[in-house]
Protein backbone atom coordinates (compact mmCIF):
# COMPACT_ATOMS: atom_id res chain seq x y z
CA UNK A 1 0.00 0.00 0.00
CA UNK A 2 1.56 3.31 -0.94
CA UNK A 3 0.40 6.47 0.64
CA UNK A 4 -0.02 9.76 -1.14
CA UNK A 5 0.77 13.19 0.18
CA UNK A 6 -2.86 14.20 0.26
CA UNK A 7 -3.61 11.23 2.49
CA UNK A 8 -0.84 12.29 4.87
CA UNK A 9 -2.38 15.73 4.95
CA UNK A 10 -5.76 14.24 5.80
CA UNK A 11 -4.24 12.10 8.55
CA UNK A 12 -2.33 15.10 9.91
CA UNK A 13 -5.61 17.00 10.05
CA UNK A 14 -7.23 14.16 11.99
CA UNK A 15 -4.25 14.15 14.37
CA UNK A 16 -4.28 17.97 14.56
CA UNK A 17 -0.65 18.31 13.64
CA UNK A 18 0.30 21.10 11.29
CA UNK A 19 2.67 20.02 8.55
CA UNK A 20 4.72 22.73 6.92
CA UNK A 21 4.39 22.46 3.12
CA UNK A 22 8.14 21.96 2.72
CA UNK A 23 8.07 18.96 5.11
CA UNK A 24 5.19 17.15 3.47
CA UNK A 25 7.05 15.31 0.71
CA UNK A 26 9.78 13.90 2.94
CA UNK A 27 7.32 12.98 5.65
CA UNK A 28 5.18 11.16 3.12
CA UNK A 29 8.11 9.11 1.90
CA UNK A 30 9.20 8.22 5.43
CA UNK A 31 5.74 7.16 6.43
CA UNK A 32 5.41 5.23 3.18
CA UNK A 33 8.57 3.33 4.17
CA UNK A 34 7.15 2.49 7.57
CA UNK A 35 3.93 1.32 5.96
CA UNK A 36 5.91 -0.87 3.60
CA UNK A 37 7.53 -2.47 6.64
CA UNK A 38 4.25 -3.13 8.40
CA UNK A 39 2.58 -4.32 5.21
CA UNK A 40 4.38 -7.64 5.70
CA UNK A 41 1.49 -8.55 7.93
CA UNK A 42 -0.92 -8.60 5.03
CA UNK A 43 0.58 -11.88 3.88
CA UNK A 44 -0.13 -13.66 7.16
CA UNK A 45 -3.13 -15.91 7.43
CA UNK A 46 -4.95 -14.92 10.60
CA UNK A 47 -8.33 -16.42 9.81
CA UNK A 48 -10.06 -17.37 13.04
CA UNK A 49 -7.44 -15.77 15.30
CA UNK A 50 -8.99 -13.76 18.10
CA UNK A 51 -7.41 -10.27 18.21
CA UNK A 52 -5.38 -9.72 21.37
CA UNK A 53 -5.93 -6.32 22.94
CA UNK A 54 -4.19 -6.99 26.22
CA UNK A 55 -1.35 -9.38 27.01
CA UNK A 56 -3.00 -10.76 30.13
CA UNK A 57 -6.27 -12.60 30.00
CA UNK A 58 -7.73 -10.48 32.78
CA UNK A 59 -11.05 -8.73 33.18
CA UNK A 60 -11.99 -5.29 34.37
CA UNK A 61 -12.07 -4.63 38.09
CA UNK A 62 -14.92 -2.45 39.34
CA UNK A 63 -14.46 0.48 41.67
CA UNK A 64 -16.89 1.28 44.50
CA UNK A 65 -18.96 4.37 43.81
CA UNK A 66 -17.40 6.71 46.33
CA UNK A 67 -16.09 10.24 45.97
CA UNK A 68 -12.38 10.13 46.70
CA UNK A 69 -11.13 13.28 44.96
CA UNK A 70 -11.30 16.70 46.59
CA UNK A 71 -11.25 19.98 44.73
CA UNK A 72 -7.71 20.81 43.57
CA UNK A 73 -8.58 23.39 40.96
CA UNK A 74 -5.98 25.92 42.05
CA UNK A 75 -3.22 23.36 41.94
CA UNK A 76 -4.19 22.13 38.48
CA UNK A 77 -4.81 25.57 37.06
CA UNK A 78 -1.46 26.87 38.32
CA UNK A 79 0.14 24.89 35.46
CA UNK A 80 -2.44 25.81 32.81
CA UNK A 81 -1.56 28.09 29.89
CA UNK A 82 -4.68 30.27 30.17
CA UNK A 83 -7.43 30.35 32.77
CA UNK A 84 -9.99 32.87 33.92
CA UNK A 85 -12.62 32.61 36.65
CA UNK A 86 -11.77 28.97 37.08
CA UNK A 87 -12.28 28.15 33.41
CA UNK A 88 -9.69 27.00 30.89
CA UNK A 89 -9.58 29.47 28.02
CA UNK A 90 -9.35 28.57 24.34
CA UNK A 91 -9.94 30.63 21.22
CA UNK A 92 -13.65 30.99 20.53
CA UNK A 93 -15.33 27.73 19.61
CA UNK A 94 -17.82 28.16 16.80
CA UNK A 95 -20.62 25.61 16.57
Amino acid sequence: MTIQQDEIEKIAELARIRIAPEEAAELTSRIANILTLVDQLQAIDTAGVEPMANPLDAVQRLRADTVTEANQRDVFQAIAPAVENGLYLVPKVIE
Partner: protein
Amino acid sequence: MSWEVVIGLEVHLQLATRSKIFSGAATAFGAEPNTQACAVDLAMPGMLPVLNEQAVRYAVMFGLGIGAEIGLRSVFDRKNYFYPDLPKGYQISQFQEPIVGRGEFEIQLEDGSTRSIGITRAHLEEDAGKSLHEDFHGMTGIDLNRAGTPLLEIVSEPDLRNAEEAVAYLKTLHSLVTYLGISDGNMAEGSMRCDINLSLRRAGSTTLGTRAEIKNVNSFRFVEKAIHHEIERQAEILEAGGQVVQETRLYDADRDETRSMRSKEVANDYRYFPEPDLLPVVIDQAWVESIRATLPELPPAKRQRFVSDYGLSSYDAGVLAANRALADYYEAVVEGCTDAKIAANWVQVELLGQLNRGELELGQSPVGAAALAGLIQRILDGSISGKIAKQVFEAMWAGEGDADTIIAARGLQQVSDSGALEALVDEVVGGNPAQVAQYLAADEGKRKKLVGFFVGQIMKLSKGQANPQMVNELLNKKLAAAGSDGES
Protein backbone atom coordinates in the same frame (compact mmCIF):
# COMPACT_ATOMS: atom_id res chain seq x y z
CA MET B 1 -47.58 14.45 -1.63
CA SER B 2 -47.94 12.37 1.48
CA TRP B 3 -44.78 11.64 3.47
CA GLU B 4 -44.13 9.07 6.10
CA VAL B 5 -41.96 10.32 8.94
CA VAL B 6 -39.30 8.00 10.32
CA ILE B 7 -37.75 8.92 13.65
CA GLY B 8 -35.14 7.22 15.79
CA LEU B 9 -33.97 8.73 19.05
CA GLU B 10 -30.63 8.59 20.84
CA VAL B 11 -30.98 9.49 24.46
CA HIS B 12 -27.98 10.37 26.62
CA LEU B 13 -28.94 9.61 30.16
CA GLN B 14 -26.76 10.75 33.06
CA LEU B 15 -26.63 8.00 35.62
CA ALA B 16 -27.20 8.95 39.25
CA THR B 17 -23.85 7.78 40.61
CA ARG B 18 -22.07 9.73 43.31
CA SER B 19 -18.71 9.65 41.58
CA LYS B 20 -17.70 9.68 37.94
CA ILE B 21 -17.60 6.68 35.69
CA PHE B 22 -13.79 6.45 35.62
CA SER B 23 -12.64 8.61 38.54
CA GLY B 24 -13.40 9.41 42.16
CA ALA B 25 -14.52 12.99 41.49
CA ALA B 26 -18.03 14.05 42.49
CA THR B 27 -20.85 14.36 39.95
CA ALA B 28 -23.07 16.85 41.78
CA PHE B 29 -24.72 19.42 39.53
CA GLY B 30 -24.02 23.11 39.80
CA ALA B 31 -20.58 23.20 41.43
CA GLU B 32 -18.14 26.02 40.73
CA PRO B 33 -16.34 25.46 37.40
CA ASN B 34 -13.61 22.82 37.42
CA THR B 35 -13.90 22.11 41.14
CA GLN B 36 -15.12 18.59 40.41
CA ALA B 37 -12.56 17.80 37.74
CA CYS B 38 -9.78 15.63 39.14
CA ALA B 39 -6.50 14.61 37.49
CA VAL B 40 -8.21 11.77 35.61
CA ASP B 41 -11.00 14.03 34.34
CA LEU B 42 -8.44 16.62 33.26
CA ALA B 43 -6.47 13.96 31.37
CA MET B 44 -3.30 14.79 33.23
CA PRO B 45 -0.35 12.75 31.94
CA GLY B 46 -0.22 9.21 33.28
CA MET B 47 -3.78 9.20 34.63
CA LEU B 48 -5.82 6.05 34.13
CA PRO B 49 -9.53 5.13 34.24
CA VAL B 50 -11.07 2.66 36.67
CA LEU B 51 -14.68 1.66 36.09
CA ASN B 52 -17.40 2.58 38.60
CA GLU B 53 -19.39 -0.49 39.64
CA GLN B 54 -22.57 1.47 40.18
CA ALA B 55 -22.58 2.69 36.59
CA VAL B 56 -22.41 -0.92 35.42
CA ARG B 57 -25.19 -1.90 37.82
CA TYR B 58 -27.42 0.92 36.58
CA ALA B 59 -26.86 -0.09 32.97
CA VAL B 60 -27.79 -3.67 33.81
CA MET B 61 -30.91 -2.44 35.63
CA PHE B 62 -31.94 -0.55 32.54
CA GLY B 63 -31.35 -3.57 30.36
CA LEU B 64 -33.46 -5.73 32.63
CA GLY B 65 -36.13 -3.03 32.68
CA ILE B 66 -36.59 -3.27 28.91
CA GLY B 67 -36.17 -7.03 28.78
CA ALA B 68 -32.96 -6.69 26.79
CA GLU B 69 -30.08 -9.06 26.42
CA ILE B 70 -27.39 -8.12 28.94
CA GLY B 71 -23.87 -8.17 27.54
CA LEU B 72 -22.08 -10.45 30.00
CA ARG B 73 -18.93 -9.34 28.24
CA SER B 74 -18.73 -5.76 27.09
CA VAL B 75 -15.79 -3.74 25.87
CA PHE B 76 -14.89 -0.07 26.12
CA ASP B 77 -13.49 1.66 23.07
CA ARG B 78 -11.89 4.99 22.43
CA LYS B 79 -13.76 7.37 20.17
CA ASN B 80 -11.17 9.83 18.97
CA TYR B 81 -11.80 13.48 18.16
CA PHE B 82 -10.44 16.82 19.26
CA TYR B 83 -12.67 19.21 21.12
CA PRO B 84 -11.80 21.43 24.07
CA ASP B 85 -14.46 19.88 26.29
CA LEU B 86 -12.96 16.43 25.66
CA PRO B 87 -9.69 16.51 27.62
CA LYS B 88 -8.17 13.21 26.51
CA GLY B 89 -8.88 13.81 22.84
CA TYR B 90 -11.02 10.71 22.96
CA GLN B 91 -14.23 9.69 24.63
CA ILE B 92 -14.32 6.31 26.35
CA SER B 93 -17.44 4.65 25.01
CA GLN B 94 -18.66 1.23 23.92
CA PHE B 95 -18.79 0.58 20.22
CA GLN B 96 -18.67 -3.05 19.15
CA GLU B 97 -19.76 -4.79 22.35
CA PRO B 98 -22.27 -2.73 24.36
CA ILE B 99 -23.49 -3.73 27.79
CA VAL B 100 -27.17 -3.71 26.80
CA GLY B 101 -28.38 -5.37 23.61
CA ARG B 102 -31.73 -5.33 21.89
CA GLY B 103 -34.86 -4.73 23.92
CA GLU B 104 -38.18 -2.99 23.62
CA PHE B 105 -40.89 -1.26 25.52
CA GLU B 106 -44.42 -0.13 25.08
CA ILE B 107 -45.42 3.48 24.79
CA GLN B 108 -48.92 4.70 25.50
CA LEU B 109 -50.41 7.44 23.35
CA GLU B 110 -52.94 10.08 24.36
CA ASP B 111 -55.81 8.10 22.89
CA GLY B 112 -54.96 5.19 25.15
CA SER B 113 -53.53 3.03 22.38
CA THR B 114 -50.11 1.47 22.81
CA ARG B 115 -47.15 0.78 20.50
CA SER B 116 -44.07 -1.29 21.00
CA ILE B 117 -40.80 0.54 20.27
CA GLY B 118 -37.54 -1.31 19.74
CA ILE B 119 -34.35 -0.37 21.57
CA THR B 120 -31.35 -1.18 19.41
CA ARG B 121 -28.80 -1.03 22.22
CA ALA B 122 -27.66 0.93 25.23
CA HIS B 123 -24.03 1.51 26.12
CA LEU B 124 -21.97 3.16 28.81
CA GLU B 125 -19.77 6.14 28.09
CA GLU B 126 -18.42 9.29 29.69
CA ASP B 127 -19.91 12.74 29.36
CA ALA B 128 -17.86 15.66 28.04
CA GLY B 129 -17.30 19.00 29.77
CA LYS B 130 -19.02 22.24 28.86
CA SER B 131 -17.93 25.12 26.68
CA LEU B 132 -19.07 28.55 27.79
CA HIS B 133 -19.04 31.07 25.00
CA GLU B 134 -20.06 34.21 26.82
CA ASP B 135 -18.10 36.94 28.52
CA PHE B 136 -14.56 35.87 27.81
CA HIS B 137 -13.57 38.62 25.39
CA GLY B 138 -13.82 36.45 22.35
CA MET B 139 -12.49 33.34 24.09
CA THR B 140 -14.37 30.23 25.11
CA GLY B 141 -14.21 29.02 28.72
CA ILE B 142 -14.03 25.31 29.44
CA ASP B 143 -15.60 23.77 32.53
CA LEU B 144 -14.73 20.10 32.97
CA ASN B 145 -16.93 19.33 35.97
CA ARG B 146 -19.27 17.33 33.77
CA ALA B 147 -16.41 15.47 32.05
CA GLY B 148 -16.52 11.85 33.11
CA THR B 149 -20.11 11.83 34.37
CA PRO B 150 -21.48 8.40 33.49
CA LEU B 151 -23.85 8.30 30.56
CA LEU B 152 -26.05 5.54 29.25
CA GLU B 153 -26.67 6.14 25.57
CA ILE B 154 -29.98 4.55 24.63
CA VAL B 155 -30.52 4.10 20.91
CA SER B 156 -34.02 3.40 19.59
CA GLU B 157 -34.97 1.69 16.38
CA PRO B 158 -36.42 4.02 13.74
CA ASP B 159 -39.87 2.96 14.90
CA LEU B 160 -41.36 6.34 15.74
CA ARG B 161 -43.66 8.01 13.24
CA ASN B 162 -44.48 11.43 14.59
CA ALA B 163 -43.75 13.95 17.30
CA GLU B 164 -46.45 12.59 19.59
CA GLU B 165 -44.91 9.15 19.52
CA ALA B 166 -41.45 10.56 20.06
CA VAL B 167 -42.61 12.50 23.09
CA ALA B 168 -44.53 9.48 24.41
CA TYR B 169 -41.36 7.41 23.96
CA LEU B 170 -39.31 9.91 25.92
CA LYS B 171 -41.91 10.17 28.65
CA THR B 172 -42.06 6.40 28.96
CA LEU B 173 -38.28 6.24 29.05
CA HIS B 174 -38.17 9.00 31.63
CA SER B 175 -40.72 7.15 33.71
CA LEU B 176 -38.74 3.91 33.45
CA VAL B 177 -35.37 5.35 34.44
CA THR B 178 -36.73 7.35 37.34
CA TYR B 179 -38.61 4.25 38.53
CA LEU B 180 -35.37 2.33 38.41
CA GLY B 181 -33.69 5.17 40.24
CA ILE B 182 -30.78 5.07 37.82
CA SER B 183 -31.11 8.73 36.85
CA ASP B 184 -32.70 11.80 38.35
CA GLY B 185 -34.15 12.45 34.91
CA ASN B 186 -33.76 16.18 35.41
CA MET B 187 -33.95 17.46 31.87
CA ALA B 188 -33.39 21.08 32.80
CA GLU B 189 -30.00 20.08 34.25
CA GLY B 190 -29.18 17.96 31.22
CA SER B 191 -29.63 14.58 32.88
CA MET B 192 -31.55 13.37 29.85
CA ARG B 193 -30.57 14.73 26.47
CA CYS B 194 -31.92 13.68 23.15
CA ASP B 195 -30.60 13.48 19.59
CA ILE B 196 -33.27 13.07 16.94
CA ASN B 197 -32.64 11.18 13.70
CA LEU B 198 -35.37 12.07 11.28
CA SER B 199 -36.07 11.30 7.65
CA LEU B 200 -39.06 11.34 5.33
CA ARG B 201 -40.08 8.81 2.75
CA ARG B 202 -43.00 8.47 0.37
CA ALA B 203 -45.93 6.82 2.04
CA GLY B 204 -45.74 3.12 1.37
CA SER B 205 -42.02 3.10 0.64
CA THR B 206 -39.90 0.66 2.63
CA THR B 207 -36.51 2.24 2.06
CA LEU B 208 -35.34 4.97 4.37
CA GLY B 209 -34.81 8.52 3.18
CA THR B 210 -31.72 10.58 3.94
CA ARG B 211 -31.78 11.61 7.55
CA ALA B 212 -30.70 14.62 9.49
CA GLU B 213 -29.57 14.40 13.08
CA ILE B 214 -30.74 17.07 15.46
CA LYS B 215 -28.46 17.30 18.47
CA ASN B 216 -29.09 17.98 22.10
CA VAL B 217 -32.78 18.65 22.39
CA ASN B 218 -33.40 18.90 26.08
CA SER B 219 -37.12 19.04 26.84
CA PHE B 220 -40.24 17.20 25.76
CA ARG B 221 -41.65 20.41 24.34
CA PHE B 222 -38.53 21.16 22.32
CA VAL B 223 -38.49 17.63 20.96
CA GLU B 224 -42.01 18.14 19.72
CA LYS B 225 -41.22 21.53 18.19
CA ALA B 226 -37.93 20.42 16.68
CA ILE B 227 -39.63 17.45 15.03
CA HIS B 228 -42.46 19.54 13.61
CA HIS B 229 -39.99 22.04 12.32
CA GLU B 230 -37.69 19.43 10.81
CA ILE B 231 -40.56 17.59 9.10
CA GLU B 232 -41.63 20.84 7.53
CA ARG B 233 -38.09 21.66 6.43
CA GLN B 234 -37.46 18.27 4.84
CA ALA B 235 -40.89 18.14 3.20
CA GLU B 236 -40.28 21.53 1.63
CA ILE B 237 -36.96 20.37 0.22
CA LEU B 238 -38.39 17.13 -1.11
CA GLU B 239 -41.48 18.70 -2.57
CA ALA B 240 -39.34 21.20 -4.42
CA GLY B 241 -37.54 18.21 -5.93
CA GLY B 242 -34.45 18.67 -3.78
CA GLN B 243 -32.43 16.29 -1.66
CA VAL B 244 -32.02 16.25 2.07
CA VAL B 245 -28.38 16.49 3.09
CA GLN B 246 -27.19 14.03 5.71
CA GLU B 247 -25.89 16.31 8.43
CA THR B 248 -25.97 17.27 12.07
CA ARG B 249 -28.30 20.10 13.00
CA LEU B 250 -28.75 22.02 16.18
CA TYR B 251 -32.18 22.97 17.53
CA ASP B 252 -32.29 26.61 18.52
CA ALA B 253 -35.08 26.95 21.06
CA ASP B 254 -34.99 30.74 21.00
CA ARG B 255 -35.62 30.95 17.30
CA ASP B 256 -37.55 27.68 17.09
CA GLU B 257 -35.52 26.39 14.18
CA THR B 258 -32.85 23.83 13.42
CA ARG B 259 -29.66 24.87 11.77
CA SER B 260 -26.69 23.06 10.36
CA MET B 261 -23.68 22.49 12.65
CA ARG B 262 -20.99 22.75 10.06
CA SER B 263 -18.15 22.55 12.55
CA LYS B 264 -19.03 18.96 13.40
CA GLU B 265 -19.06 17.95 9.77
CA VAL B 266 -15.36 18.17 9.12
CA ALA B 267 -14.27 14.66 8.18
CA ASN B 268 -15.38 12.77 11.25
CA ASP B 269 -13.31 9.63 11.51
CA TYR B 270 -13.53 8.54 15.11
CA ARG B 271 -10.91 5.77 14.84
CA TYR B 272 -12.65 3.54 17.37
CA PHE B 273 -10.44 0.87 18.91
CA PRO B 274 -10.54 -1.07 22.18
CA GLU B 275 -9.51 1.15 25.11
CA PRO B 276 -6.21 -0.41 26.25
CA ASP B 277 -6.39 1.19 29.68
CA LEU B 278 -9.50 -0.84 30.51
CA LEU B 279 -10.05 -4.58 30.31
CA PRO B 280 -13.17 -6.33 29.05
CA VAL B 281 -16.05 -5.97 31.50
CA VAL B 282 -17.19 -9.46 32.39
CA ILE B 283 -20.21 -9.90 34.64
CA ASP B 284 -21.83 -13.17 35.58
CA GLN B 285 -25.43 -14.22 35.29
CA ALA B 286 -25.72 -14.64 39.06
CA TRP B 287 -24.90 -10.97 39.55
CA VAL B 288 -27.43 -10.02 36.89
CA GLU B 289 -30.04 -12.13 38.68
CA SER B 290 -29.24 -10.53 42.02
CA ILE B 291 -29.84 -7.15 40.38
CA ARG B 292 -33.06 -8.39 38.81
CA ALA B 293 -34.26 -9.39 42.28
CA THR B 294 -33.88 -5.81 43.48
CA LEU B 295 -35.78 -4.20 40.61
CA PRO B 296 -38.88 -2.29 41.65
CA GLU B 297 -42.27 -3.01 40.05
CA LEU B 298 -42.08 -1.18 36.72
CA PRO B 299 -44.77 1.02 35.15
CA PRO B 300 -46.37 -1.56 32.82
CA ALA B 301 -46.78 -4.11 35.62
CA LYS B 302 -48.01 -1.46 37.97
CA ARG B 303 -50.53 -0.18 35.44
CA GLN B 304 -51.89 -3.65 34.99
CA ARG B 305 -52.17 -4.20 38.71
CA PHE B 306 -54.00 -0.90 39.16
CA VAL B 307 -56.53 -2.05 36.58
CA SER B 308 -57.01 -5.54 37.99
CA ASP B 309 -56.73 -4.84 41.71
CA TYR B 310 -58.27 -1.38 41.93
CA GLY B 311 -60.66 -1.51 39.01
CA LEU B 312 -59.23 1.62 37.45
CA SER B 313 -59.55 2.39 33.77
CA SER B 314 -56.45 1.68 31.72
CA TYR B 315 -55.98 5.41 31.17
CA ASP B 316 -56.23 6.33 34.85
CA ALA B 317 -53.95 3.46 35.77
CA GLY B 318 -51.45 4.68 33.16
CA VAL B 319 -51.44 8.23 34.53
CA LEU B 320 -50.97 7.08 38.11
CA ALA B 321 -48.34 4.46 37.29
CA ALA B 322 -46.22 6.66 35.04
CA ASN B 323 -44.43 8.33 37.91
CA ARG B 324 -43.05 6.27 40.74
CA ALA B 325 -43.55 8.91 43.38
CA LEU B 326 -47.13 9.52 42.25
CA ALA B 327 -47.91 5.81 42.20
CA ASP B 328 -46.48 5.43 45.69
CA TYR B 329 -48.51 8.41 46.86
CA TYR B 330 -51.64 7.00 45.30
CA GLU B 331 -51.16 3.60 46.89
CA ALA B 332 -50.61 5.20 50.26
CA VAL B 333 -53.89 7.09 49.87
CA VAL B 334 -55.68 3.86 48.92
CA GLU B 335 -54.27 2.16 51.97
CA GLY B 336 -55.41 4.99 54.20
CA CYS B 337 -58.94 5.35 52.84
CA THR B 338 -59.64 1.91 51.33
CA ASP B 339 -61.58 3.25 48.32
CA ALA B 340 -59.28 2.96 45.31
CA LYS B 341 -61.54 4.67 42.82
CA ILE B 342 -62.32 7.74 44.91
CA ALA B 343 -58.61 7.89 45.79
CA ALA B 344 -57.72 7.78 42.08
CA ASN B 345 -60.14 10.58 41.35
CA TRP B 346 -58.84 12.79 44.13
CA VAL B 347 -55.20 12.22 43.26
CA GLN B 348 -55.67 12.86 39.56
CA VAL B 349 -58.11 15.76 39.72
CA GLU B 350 -57.53 17.66 42.92
CA LEU B 351 -53.94 16.83 43.81
CA LEU B 352 -52.46 17.03 40.30
CA GLY B 353 -54.62 20.07 39.62
CA GLN B 354 -53.18 21.92 42.58
CA LEU B 355 -49.65 20.80 41.75
CA ASN B 356 -49.99 22.02 38.18
CA ARG B 357 -51.44 25.34 39.22
CA GLY B 358 -48.64 25.86 41.69
CA GLU B 359 -46.00 24.39 39.32
CA LEU B 360 -44.92 22.11 42.11
CA GLU B 361 -43.35 18.70 42.21
CA LEU B 362 -45.14 15.97 44.08
CA GLY B 363 -42.47 16.06 46.75
CA GLN B 364 -43.42 19.68 47.46
CA SER B 365 -47.10 18.96 47.99
CA PRO B 366 -48.32 20.46 51.27
CA VAL B 367 -50.86 17.66 51.55
CA GLY B 368 -49.36 14.26 52.21
CA ALA B 369 -50.92 10.94 51.26
CA ALA B 370 -52.08 10.20 54.81
CA ALA B 371 -53.75 13.61 55.07
CA LEU B 372 -55.54 13.13 51.77
CA ALA B 373 -56.67 9.67 52.88
CA GLY B 374 -58.04 11.25 56.06
CA LEU B 375 -60.08 13.70 54.03
CA ILE B 376 -61.47 10.94 51.80
CA GLN B 377 -62.45 8.98 54.89
CA ARG B 378 -64.65 11.87 55.97
CA ILE B 379 -66.45 11.70 52.64
CA LEU B 380 -66.89 7.98 52.96
CA ASP B 381 -68.25 8.13 56.48
CA GLY B 382 -70.66 10.84 55.53
CA SER B 383 -69.12 13.56 57.66
CA ILE B 384 -68.84 15.84 54.66
CA SER B 385 -70.00 15.82 51.09
CA GLY B 386 -67.69 15.65 48.13
CA LYS B 387 -68.34 19.30 47.43
CA ILE B 388 -67.45 20.40 50.94
CA ALA B 389 -64.43 18.13 50.77
CA LYS B 390 -63.04 20.28 47.96
CA GLN B 391 -63.23 23.31 50.22
CA VAL B 392 -61.52 21.37 52.97
CA PHE B 393 -58.81 20.23 50.56
CA GLU B 394 -58.11 23.82 49.57
CA ALA B 395 -57.80 24.76 53.20
CA MET B 396 -55.46 21.82 53.76
CA TRP B 397 -53.40 23.00 50.79
CA ALA B 398 -53.23 26.44 52.38
CA GLY B 399 -51.79 24.85 55.48
CA GLU B 400 -54.76 25.18 57.81
CA GLY B 401 -54.34 21.69 59.22
CA ASP B 402 -55.75 18.25 58.59
CA ALA B 403 -59.26 17.52 57.40
CA ASP B 404 -60.80 16.99 60.84
CA THR B 405 -59.33 20.20 62.21
CA ILE B 406 -60.65 22.21 59.30
CA ILE B 407 -64.08 20.59 59.35
CA ALA B 408 -64.41 21.30 63.04
CA ALA B 409 -63.00 24.82 62.87
CA ARG B 410 -65.25 25.82 60.00
CA GLY B 411 -68.25 23.89 61.19
CA LEU B 412 -68.49 22.00 57.97
CA GLN B 413 -69.71 18.78 59.54
CA GLN B 414 -72.42 17.38 57.35
CA VAL B 415 -75.87 17.64 58.87
CA SER B 416 -77.05 14.09 59.26
CA ASP B 417 -79.28 14.73 62.24
CA SER B 418 -82.71 13.65 60.99
CA GLY B 419 -84.55 16.12 63.21
CA ALA B 420 -82.62 19.10 61.87
CA LEU B 421 -82.89 17.84 58.31
CA GLU B 422 -86.61 17.21 58.68
CA ALA B 423 -87.09 20.82 59.73
CA LEU B 424 -85.26 21.98 56.60
CA VAL B 425 -87.25 19.69 54.38
CA ASP B 426 -90.48 20.84 55.94
CA GLU B 427 -89.51 24.45 55.46
CA VAL B 428 -88.77 23.97 51.76
CA VAL B 429 -91.76 21.75 51.05
CA GLY B 430 -94.05 24.03 53.01
CA GLY B 431 -92.62 27.17 51.43
CA ASN B 432 -93.10 26.05 47.81
CA PRO B 433 -96.65 24.82 47.44
CA ALA B 434 -96.77 25.56 43.72
CA GLN B 435 -93.75 23.33 43.06
CA VAL B 436 -95.21 20.65 45.31
CA ALA B 437 -98.43 20.70 43.31
CA GLN B 438 -96.46 20.55 40.07
CA TYR B 439 -94.54 17.60 41.44
CA LEU B 440 -97.64 15.76 42.44
CA ALA B 441 -99.20 16.31 39.04
CA ALA B 442 -96.15 15.09 37.14
CA ASP B 443 -95.43 11.59 35.96
CA GLU B 444 -92.60 9.48 37.32
CA GLY B 445 -90.08 10.71 34.74
CA LYS B 446 -90.62 14.39 35.40
CA ARG B 447 -90.79 13.95 39.17
CA LYS B 448 -87.08 13.08 39.28
CA LYS B 449 -86.21 16.43 37.76
CA LEU B 450 -88.47 18.30 40.09
CA VAL B 451 -86.96 16.61 43.13
CA GLY B 452 -83.71 18.27 42.15
CA PHE B 453 -85.30 21.66 42.76
CA PHE B 454 -86.19 20.79 46.33
CA VAL B 455 -82.77 19.25 47.00
CA GLY B 456 -81.09 22.36 45.67
CA GLN B 457 -83.17 24.57 47.91
CA ILE B 458 -82.42 22.42 50.95
CA MET B 459 -78.69 22.32 50.25
CA LYS B 460 -78.72 26.07 49.83
CA LEU B 461 -80.42 26.50 53.17
CA SER B 462 -77.96 24.14 54.80
CA LYS B 463 -74.95 25.85 53.14
CA GLY B 464 -74.20 22.51 51.49
CA GLN B 465 -73.88 20.69 54.75
CA ALA B 466 -77.00 18.61 54.59
CA ASN B 467 -76.39 14.96 53.99
CA PRO B 468 -77.69 14.60 50.43
CA GLN B 469 -78.66 10.97 50.82
CA MET B 470 -80.74 11.64 53.91
CA VAL B 471 -82.24 14.72 52.32
CA ASN B 472 -83.36 12.58 49.39
CA GLU B 473 -84.91 10.01 51.64
CA LEU B 474 -86.73 12.58 53.79
CA LEU B 475 -87.86 14.55 50.79
CA ASN B 476 -89.31 11.50 49.09
CA LYS B 477 -91.10 10.65 52.29
CA LYS B 478 -92.49 14.19 52.74
CA LEU B 479 -93.56 14.56 49.11
CA ALA B 480 -95.25 11.19 49.19
CA ALA B 481 -97.01 12.27 52.38
CA ALA B 482 -98.06 15.54 50.77
CA GLY B 483 -99.58 13.54 47.90
CA SER B 484 -101.57 11.25 50.15
CA ASP B 485 -102.71 14.27 52.21
CA GLY B 486 -104.04 15.90 49.05
CA GLU B 487 -105.81 12.74 47.97
CA SER B 488 -107.35 12.06 51.26
